[in-house]
Every structure is written in C-alpha cells, then in structure tokens.
C-alpha cells in the first residue's frame, strides 16, 4: 500500500479514529481488554492536542467517559455496571468495529477511484436548441425556488467551546487529588469530585485521576456496596512516589 495513506492516518480526525489508531498501533483486536489498555493513551493523546478539534469535543469527552468505565471495570472487577453503562460500552465496541470495517472498505474505493473510468457519450455539438419553457417557468415559481435554495444552504455548526477547557485540566486534578489524599489520608470520591454539584465532565476527570493514582500505586480504593461511594486511601503515607 502506498505510504501517503499511512502518514495521513496519523492526523486523527475524530475520537473513533483516534481510538482505532491507538488499538491498531498495538496490533490489538477491538474488545474491552484492548479498550482498557488504550484508555490512558487516549487521554494522553487528548491532553497532547494543541489544536483540539473543537467541533467534536463533546464526542471526545463522551468516549473518554466510556473508556474510563471500561478501565475502572478492569481495575475493580467487583464494580457493578448499570445497564446504561454496559450498553454504552457495548455500543462503543460496536461502533469501533463498524468504523474499522468501513475504513478498510474505503481502501477498495481508493484503489479503484478514477483508475478505471468509463465514459458517457459526449453531448453532440449540433444538438437542436428549441425554446421550451414549462408551466413552472414563471416569476412566482422562480422566486419561490430561489428562496428555498437559500434557506437550505448549510450554515457552519456552532461549537461548544466551554467543554474543551474542562478536559484539559486532567493533570491539575491528579495533582490536587494526590495533595488532598496525602493530607487527609482518607476521603471519599464523592466528596472529592463534588459529585452532584458539578458538571458530569468534572466527575469523569476526577474519576480518571483516581484511577491513575491507583495504577501508580499511590492510593487504594474500596467500594463497600454497589453504587456506594468509593473510599480512597493512600498506600505510602507521606512518601512522594512521583
């Protein structure tokens, strides 16, 4: 295959494209295990983006939140997922598989496009022109038609810029979570994330931060019962490990 195509895929176009790129880079199949594995890469990629694709920021965040779910499930096997959460995981897997399929198929089109072309007959130059208006050829109809054309020209979508800044603060969240845990030793995720009092995106970011700390071995988490609050504790009190 020609190399320009591969180069082009490095400029990820959207969240699914990004995610698929990360999975394929590791030569993995699409399933919950591979998705849990690339969740960090995905977050890291979003953080690294200087020119965040603003138009799709909501999509990026939604998918990030699903990845967090998948990853948290893999880290905390006892974590019970709601039907809605499980659906969103299945849905993401399904979409990724579909997207991967069509991406592959688009290569067929790329190979064929413009290579084998057949041609219609050229229009005859000596075709007879005969003045033949129809019953719609009147001023009223023309004015009506032009109005509806003008109305149907797409206007560029308005994009929610506010959402973008929230995701970028992931690092700050990790820092602040570490600080607070080390000072109070024990706190609840609900308290920390101000769940119910702030936007969902902040909760997601907090949760991500918590998982990141679990992964780095800085804290332990404990959830006594399904849907109950998660207790966080530091592993190594007072020892900075990062």
């Amino acid at each position, binding site marked *: 295959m020609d190399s320009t195509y591969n180069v082009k895929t490095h400029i990820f176009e959207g969240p699914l494209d990004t995610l698929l790129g990360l999975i394929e880079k590791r030569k993995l199949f699409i399933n919950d295990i591979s998705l849990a594995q690339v969740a960090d890469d995905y977050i890291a990629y979003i953080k690294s983006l200087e020119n965040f694709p603003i138009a799709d920021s909501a999509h990026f965040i939604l998918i990030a939140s699903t990845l967090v779910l998948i990853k948290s499930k893999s880290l905390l096997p006892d974590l019970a997922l709601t039907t809605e959460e499980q659906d969103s995981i299945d849905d993401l897997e399904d979409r990724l598989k579909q997207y991967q399929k069509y991406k592959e198929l688009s290569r067929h089109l*790329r190979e064929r496009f413009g290579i084998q072309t057949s041609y219609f*007959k050229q229009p005859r130059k000596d075709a007879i022109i005969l003045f033949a208006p129809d019953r719609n050829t009147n001023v009223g109809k023309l004015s009506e038609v032009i109005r509806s054309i003008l109305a149907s020209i797409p206007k560029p979508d308005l994009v929610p810029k506010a959402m973008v800044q929230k995701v970028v603060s992931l690092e700050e969240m990790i820092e602040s979570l570490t600080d607070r845990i080390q000072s109070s030793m024990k706190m609840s995720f609900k308290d920390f994330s101000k769940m119910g009092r702030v936007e969902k995106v902040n909760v997601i970011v907090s949760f991500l931060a918590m998982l990141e700390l679990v992964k780095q071995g800085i804290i332990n988490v404990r959830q006594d019962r399904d849907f109950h609050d998660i207790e966080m504790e530091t592993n190594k009190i007072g020892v900075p490990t990062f």
Partner: protein
Amino acid sequence: MNIELINKIEAILFYSSEPVKASFLAKVLEVGETEILESLKLLEETLGSRGIRLLSHQNEVSLVTAPEYSSLIEAIVKEERERDLGKASLETLAIVAYKGPVTKKEIEYIRGVNSQYALRSLLLRGLVEKKGVEGDERMVGYTITADALRHLGLSKLEDLPEYTAVKQEIHNSLKNEETVAEETQE
C-alpha cells in the same frame, strides 16, 4: 427473447447519453417493466465483451465506454485525472456505497465525527445523492450515484469488492439491533 425490444432499448440508451429509468423505457416502449429488465440483462450480456457497456444503477441504466479502454479515451480527451478524494470523503463514500441508503446521522454515528462537509463535497462532485428514505418521508438517505460507479470502473454496485458479504453483515447486525431494541423497550 425479443431482439427487436433489445435493439430499441439500445437505440434509446444511445440517444439519451444519460441514465434512464427502466420505468421510462417501459412507458416509451409500451411493455411491462419485467420485460424491460429481462431485455436489459440480455443487452448487458451482448455488450459484455464490446467497446460499449451497459451501466446499471438502482433501476437506472446508461451506455458507457468499456472501462478497459479508459486510457484510450483519456488520451483523446486529455481530461485531467480526477483528484484523489480525501480520507474523510473516502470513508464517507464507503459507508454510502456499502450501506446506502444511509442517513447523515448514521454516517456520523459510524465515523464518530461531524460529516456535513464530507457529504457536501461528495454531493458537489456528483458522487452521492440524497433520496427520501422509504417509509419515512422526513428522513433523507444518501446513495451512491451512477457517476461514482463509473469513476470506480464498476457497472453495478454489486461488483464492489466484498459487497455481498458486507451487505449480509449489515443485515445481520441490524436484526440484532432490532432484537435488542425490542427487548429493552418497556
């Protein structure tokens, strides 16, 4: 087999030089559409190894030069080779080709990004077209055009690589979705 009818169809298609509906042929030639479709099949066979081919697409047919002589025709017209399609357009075109008629929403669901501009650029190039979705007047579905097929060197959509397999897969997963949807409906 009615040779006279095949000849007439050939004459009309030659004259028209634009895609023509089977129903139009039926009306003009005063025969049933089934008969037209049968004759078209025979015409396609007759033309199979010739310099002219029959191109059929969604009930529309036209005559075109055989794809194997494209370089010859290109040399005559010195027409500029079509510029490559971008990645976004190619992905969108693939979804429309294999899954069409497909709505903008479905395309964006699969690609995960806003596909308004990719679609518009395909529309502008005459590669896809809008069609009302059967059974739902408000929905607009996109389908691939006869022109796009011509650019792909295909005489019908079914000749696309893996077409039947993909179509079957889509069909199966749709069935699954329906089952799930029914189950979750309360």
